């Protein structure tokens, strides 16, 4: 049992625990800067997914669930909805579908900030990637392990094959 062994390893646990915060921060940073520098929603989502995976391996499914503590299906749904709204919205407003808008607004502390619906789309991508990885990891992690022996060739053929 690989997972069981890793869970009992204190070094892994400490490393994972501390690196989590860093990973989250990096992910957000990569997500938001993505439009100008290397990065974007996809990679950011994958980073969070990696964090969830590590958390899951180190502390079990419950701990992994605690990162973005929303049921994964809603993560997926809201991510898709966010991205989709930037696709459908312009069409409903009489422009070409998926025509992104951008502009500059002045904020008190940050000064002039460039906004773009493209970033909303990217956040949607981020949420979907996180949601997918979370669904997959949690489902697999919660599945019972059945140890099955290696099979002889004849046996494999039968299970693979059906001839009518």
């Amino acid at each position: 049992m690989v997972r069981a062994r890793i869970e009992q390893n204190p070094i892994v646990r400490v490393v994972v625990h501390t690196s989590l915060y860093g990973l989250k921060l990096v992910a957000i940073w990569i997500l938001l800067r993505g439009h100008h520098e290397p990065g974007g929603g996809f990679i950011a989502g994958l980073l969070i997914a990696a964090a969830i995976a590590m958390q899951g391996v180190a502390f079990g499914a419950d701990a992994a669930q605690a990162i973005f503590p929303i049921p994964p299906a809603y993560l997926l749904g809201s991510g898709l909805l966010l991205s989709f709204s930037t696709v459908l919205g312009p069409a409903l407003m009489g422009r070409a579908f998926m025509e992104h808008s951008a502009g500059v607004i002045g904020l008190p502390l940050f000064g002039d900030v460039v906004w773009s619906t493209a970033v909303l789309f990217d956040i949607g991508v981020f949420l979907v990637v996180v949601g997918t990885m979370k669904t997959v990891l949690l489902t697999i992690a919660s599945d019972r392990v059945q140890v099955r022996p290696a099979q002889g060739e004849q046996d494999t053929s039968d299970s693979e094959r059906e001839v009518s």
Partner: protein
Amino acid sequence: MSNLVAYPVLLCFGTGILQLLLHKRVVLQRALALLSSMAGIVLSVLLTYTIWTSGIQVQTAGGWPVPFGITLTADLFSGLMMILAAVVLFTSVLYIFKDMDAASERTFFYPVLFFMMAGVNLSFATGDIFNLYVAFEVMLISSYFLMALGSKGPQLREGLKYLLLNTVASSIFLVAVALLYGVTSSLNMADIAAKAAMDPGNPYITLAGMLFMVVFAAKGALFPFYWWLPRSYYYVPNGIAPLFASMLTKVGVYGLIRVFTLIFVHDSGLTHSLLLVIGGLTMLLGVIGAISQYDFKAILSYHIISQIGYMIMGLGLYTVLGLAGAVYYIAHHIIVKSGLFLLSGATSRITGNTDFKHYSGLLASHPGLAFTFFATAISLAGVPPFSGFFAKFALLKAAVEKGAWGIAAVSLVVSFFTLFSMIKIFRKAYWGRPSGQRIQRDRKDYIAALSPAVILLALSVAMGLGGGYMMEFALATADQLMNPAIYIEAVMGR
């Protein structure tokens, strides 16, 4: 420039997303499914009517100029396919309400169904070869989900073959796109077609065409790539099988017809003759598979292959009448095949089985079911005055006019075997002494399960009796397909 061409796709995406968010509320998901499938019919008819009156509809995502953005392009062929997809979705949804086990229905069934339809509609609407790849991916993963829904042993075993063989095809798709992009530096199909026309018969483009032939032949279950279909479709849950059988492989056929009437048209002596041979072998081997079976659903599954051969026959002939026949045939096939799978489902709801070993003699107790099947089945075999007859006859006439005697003879022989296997189902399932178990259900339930098939049969009859209108539309569609310049100009010309 209107978004109309995008709406059938966006409708399916939006419906799926809402249903995903409402995944705990099955009743609301059902209501959404019903409303959305009806809206889909309205939108696709509206789109097709617009194309009919004012030409090919083009819109680019984000409003980017052609050929840089992703262009959605719908000609009559696309419009017709979207209508058919919407109609079949509607009847399937009606049937699904009756015949889908509760646990499966609760497990994200509806969202994935609509994502799959989004992929299907996107395939028909897109004018961008890479976007077509994306649409195929959406379809593939969703169809795998639906195929394996229920997670039973044989489903997983055959589903894996389906997934793997189709993933191989997808990889080849990517390779083919890479080659085509490398040669033409474009992903926009109209742009590529325009460039291909500048250097007609360029061997690199023909080579890319061969790869696309493989890709779409694999998706459309043509010889020698159909291996995944017969067994995997057999295990698709009854509620979704009609949709799979009628729509999914037709997307591959659509792809073949699209690229081999738009882009790869300059070496038709090689490509289209090859398609004719492939079409002939497909229809022959498919029907041979069908007559070797003794199971309602298995016979129907093999017939899908056989009938795809007819469609490719029309493409291979590459004349206006041939393509019109193919278009007519596709429309006929989607309606009728869907109906037959619905009837297979309705029958196994009564008998609990599709294998003829386990039941017979339903005619006496369920005459409505038996005769709906009989009429739909002979329509499939091409017996007049149903839709199948005119479709087959148009293809036969096109073959005779072109002097393609081999394929003409094969198509007649296949018709014969098709009738034989349809009669076999009728004899084994409905004729004979009543035997086997009967699952008791009330009459209302029986009628509700039967009515979607009756709707489709009525459509087949209408497409036969109104054959003149249907043929006029098919000829206009074929005319557009045979003149790629119309398509290119609609996209590039502004």
